[in-house]
């Protein structure tokens, strides 16, 4: 009785409080769904548009002036070369750097400086890494527009990501494990190698996969160092010119003819498939790993 009397005198935002609350919740849910809807439309449209072009011939043909005969052979072979090399350069270096920062350096001022520096590097736009690659690898070290220069540029780009992800994984390893190892007389490296790294491995792997998937999708830095848009041969050595899948897509998107847009759509499907697969793998690994600890 009293409650009803009270409610009549309350302002509208209290009287309709439940409704407003529900509206806020709905707005939040819709914001998330909108993002996912965009992703679904994007993938769906590219799939419909590119489906007729997604044949075995598309994967095994060189690019061509005739849209219907063009394929992505040189593009995906180039991507494979660059990614394998980039992984070989960035991953060991990144993991080593992270081990030093997390397991060796302690809380000294120098370590703090390195930390801030890496966080800042992770925020540098990828095109600036392209400028670095152009100035350093292509010109100063005279590597030219080669696979090696491209891989090295991408390696610098993903290095901060690998370091940050590895540190997170190492941080999650309980300190008691290290203390137990030291108590049994193990040295610092023995502790890291035999105790910490095996436990942190799934986390490190997750980070590495995410970093590589970033490298697979990068376009701008490779355009900067002069990866070509029309390559009708496969790289035979580290010093050969190359192209990659994102650059091939960029090339097709930029052409006015609609026939090339279908090629671009087919390329988008292939690229999306690769990156989403890698991300799904990383997420799956992370979920599995989180449940265990």
């Amino acid at each position, binding site marked *: 009785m009293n409650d009803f009397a009270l409610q009549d005198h309350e302002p509208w935002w209290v009287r309709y409080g439940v409704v407003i609350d529900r509206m806020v919740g709905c707005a939040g849910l819709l914001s998330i769904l909108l993002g996912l809807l*965009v992703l679904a439309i994007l993938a769906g449209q590219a799939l419909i548009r590119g489906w007729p072009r997604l044949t075995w011939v598309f994967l095994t043909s060189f690019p061509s002036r005739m849209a219907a005969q063009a394929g992505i052979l040189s593009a995906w072979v180039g991507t494979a070369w660059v990614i394998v090399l980039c992984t070989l350069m960035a991953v060991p270096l990144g993991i080593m750097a992270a081990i030093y920062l997390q397991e*060796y350096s302690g809380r000294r001022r120098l370590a703090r400086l*390195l930390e801030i520096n890496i966080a800042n590097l992770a*925020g540098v736009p990828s095109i*600036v890494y*392209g400028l670095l690659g152009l100035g*350093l690898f292509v010109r100063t070290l005279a590597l030219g527009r080669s696979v090696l220069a491209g891989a090295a540029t991408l390696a610098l780009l993903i290095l901060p990501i690998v370091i940050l992800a590895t540190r997170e994984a190492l941080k999650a390893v309980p300190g008691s494990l290290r203390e137990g190892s030291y108590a049994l007389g193990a040295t610092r490296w023995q502790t890291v190698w035999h105790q910490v790294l095996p436990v942190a491995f799934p986390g490190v792997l997750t980070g590495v996969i995410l970093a590589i998937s970033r490298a697979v999708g990068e376009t701008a830095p490779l355009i900067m160092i002069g990866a070509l848009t029309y390559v009708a041969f496969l790289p035979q050595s580290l010093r050969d010119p190359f192209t990659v899948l994102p650059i091939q897509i960029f090339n097709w998107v930029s052409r006015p003819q609609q026939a090339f847009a279908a090629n671009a759509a087919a390329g988008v499907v292939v690229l999306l498939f690769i990156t989403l697969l890698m991300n799904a793998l990383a997420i799956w690994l992370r979920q599995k790993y989180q449940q265990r600890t």
Partner: protein
Amino acid sequence: MSSAQTARVRDLREWVIEALLKLAAFSSIAITVGIIAVLVMETVQFFGEVSMWEFLTGREWTPLFSQKKFGVLPLFAGTALTSLIAMAVAAPLGLMSAVYLSEYTGRNVRNTIKPALEILAAVPTVVYGYFALQLVTPALQRFIPGLSGFNALSPGIVMGIMILPIISSLSEDALQAVPASLREGSYALGASRWQMVFSVAIPAAFSGIVSAFLLGVARAVGETMIVAIAAGLQPRLTFNPLVPIETVTSYIVQVSMGDTPTGSLEYKTIFAVGMSLFLVTFILNASGAWMRERFHEVYE
């Protein structure tokens, strides 16, 4: 081998390994030094030929024409315009989804939705560029008749979708860091959930949310492929989102796509422009990080 010898070998190995790891850690410093060195060297040469005043205040950017003008303002206007549009999309959507994830749903739903949202950030930017040019622009042209085939609006909107997960996830972290006691206090005073969110949780997480926005803007400013594909390559000092423009990043791509001879003045422009881009994103990222640190200090 005596045990003393084994110990010496072991110590040596430990020392070598630590030295190698240290060297690896310092590679990140080398990268920073490399970026700054490359940018500064070319930029200094550029300013030997073009006055800094003209560069910073000139209203025309035509380094690739015979009548060369080096005013960087049109490029930064393009960058500011596309980034503003992106933030107009991403800030409300990101904040609302963060509120939903943090305050309106349980851990189980959050653990399924968050990874899905993160996938948005993993889509290669060239794919977003294709999306902006082939899908969003034609769709917008149905509603806005005056919209040019290349414009700032469509890549801006798509860029907003791209940075949505960054803003959402960082804002959610900020909201999660608000202590439960503040929420409980608000409820105890009779607030309903939405009142608590807008009058307690969001204000308490304010610096974290601002930090999320700053990092999102930094990402939008540095984004290259979406604008290079869908915004056109015409430097223009305008805030009209319907006409072709050029951003700082897409100019750099434009020059490196063409056959500009290395060492020429046109070629040096990309380093001067890149330097200004680097400085802008650095300031945005650093102030974002500073805001984040600050809010961590308050509640931890």
